[in-house]
């Protein structure tokens, strides 16, 4: 694994605009950054990222099977009891997952370590699937990259195939917070892939979902919502006014309710408990349980529920050495063993390893000048050389 400085394409902003990627620069700061890229060998991709990603996903599924049947674990995850049946039923019905992203710490040696699983509402799928592929193709055409370079990326075609499993010809609603350009682009991209799988689609704001006593959730056009992709976290749905309607509605949600178990950072502690010593896991414990002291005075403190690195602190020898402010933490915290991110030229990259329909099939990289990846961390492309 190397970080290689390279020339930008002169017209990358225009290319981004033409493909609908309109948040490449946020508040004047780069989000998409192709002044450098990360290079991997094929063996690194296959042995260190792709293989372990599949293995971690398999462990996660085993974890879900155990947790849904064990109220003690559901309590430890602070899942509201009112939603246990919803989660349990979705698991027992084997409701399908479209996608997810593991965040991994890896710097070119040793096993990749799982930092967290973005299991419910991962974003950056468009730039991972499409725009970094465009970068690779144009980079080789323009001799910015070595001929024959490749990329760990079959996200686009995997998404189309995965949608077909949800039902070609069905009507899919895609809902999210459309005031956010990133969310809208993510939804529009997923809608595009769903259409290519011959699903009919409607895109709407999450606030435009309605409720009728006689037909359940409806859109603004009076149509019953039978199949819905939501870019809106389960824990927020649980808290919203319509949360109490979820159990009585027939809507099938993507991601399914059981993914609420995996997007909860308490799963990191449960994974370590169930698979202690696994080379791709870091020791992790619930902060309010006695074994948390095993990590001593150096650890990463993460809220059970948080987004984009918010409310996360790195504690070294009892002192907070890095912290992202945020509103999360009411449900409690976990402590995870420190796995310092690799430092390439003063930048700290986190690897995002994508799964579509449980198949590892893509890689994205966010880097920052701080060791906590946050919502302004830059997206850098990668290549296999």
């Amino acid at each position: 694994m190397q970080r290689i400085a390279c020339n930008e394409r002169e017209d990358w902003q225009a290319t981004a605009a033409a493909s609908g990627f309109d948040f490449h620069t946020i508040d004047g700061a780069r989000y998409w950054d192709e002044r450098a890229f990360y290079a991997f060998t094929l063996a690194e991709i296959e042995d260190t990222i792709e293989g372990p990603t599949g293995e971690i996903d398999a462990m996660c599924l085993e974890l879900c099977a155990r947790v849904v049947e064990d109220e003690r674990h559901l309590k430890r995850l602070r899942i509201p009891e009112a939603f246990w049946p919803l989660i349990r039923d979705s698991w027992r019905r084997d409701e399908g997952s479209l996608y997810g992203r593991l965040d991994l710490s890896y710097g070119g040696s040793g096993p990749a370590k799982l930092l967290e699983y973005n299991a419910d509402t991962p974003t950056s799928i468009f730039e991972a699937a499409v725009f970094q592929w465009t970068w690779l193709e144009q980079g080789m055409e323009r001799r910015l990259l070595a001929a024959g370079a490749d990329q760990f990326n079959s996200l686009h075609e995997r998404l189309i195939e995965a949608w077909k499993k949800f039902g070609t010809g069905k009507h899919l609603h895609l809902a999210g917070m459309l005031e956010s350009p990133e969310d809208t682009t993510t939804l529009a991209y997923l809608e595009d892939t769903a259409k290519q799988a011959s699903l009919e689609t409607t895109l709407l704001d999450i606030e435009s979902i309605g409720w009728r006593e006689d037909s359940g959730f409806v859109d603004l056009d009076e149509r019953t919502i039978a199949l819905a992709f939501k870019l809106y976290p389960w824990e927020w749905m649980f808290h919203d006014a319509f949360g109490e309607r979820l159990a009585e509605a027939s809507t099938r949600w993507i991601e399914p309710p059981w993914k609420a178990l995996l997007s909860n950072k308490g799963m990191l502690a449960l994974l370590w408990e169930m698979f202690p010593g696994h080379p791709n896991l870091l020791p992790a414990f619930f902060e309010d349980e006695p074994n948390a002291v095993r990590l001593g005075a150096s650890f990463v403190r993460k809220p059970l529920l948080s987004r984009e690195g918010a409310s996360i602190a790195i504690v070294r020898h009892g002192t907070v050495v890095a912290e992202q402010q945020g509103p999360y933490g009411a449900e409690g915290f976990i402590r995870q063993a420190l796995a310092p991110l690799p430092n390439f030229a003063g930048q700290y990259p986190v690897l995002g390893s994508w799964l579509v329909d449980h198949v590892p099939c893509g890689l994205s990289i966010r880097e920052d000048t701080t060791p906590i990846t946050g919502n302004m961390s830059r997206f850098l492309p990668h290549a296999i050389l």
Partner: protein
Amino acid sequence: MKRSRRVILTMMGSGTIGAISMGFVKRPNCGPGFVREAGSNLDGRPITTCRPAAYGGFGRWPHHLHGHGHGHGGG
């Protein structure tokens, strides 16, 4: 992983996003809080009635937390 792969977008790009983000489904003409429903009256003739539906039951919780940020990459 496959040099022959082709990534084709059918909708996105060149202004499509703007249309999508603004063009979500139209509001029914029954007024706020109601949805239109086709039915028939006692004579069997088709009529349209407006039945109550509640909206806005999702989407409020993040306002309790903070202004919505740059996505959901952390969960």
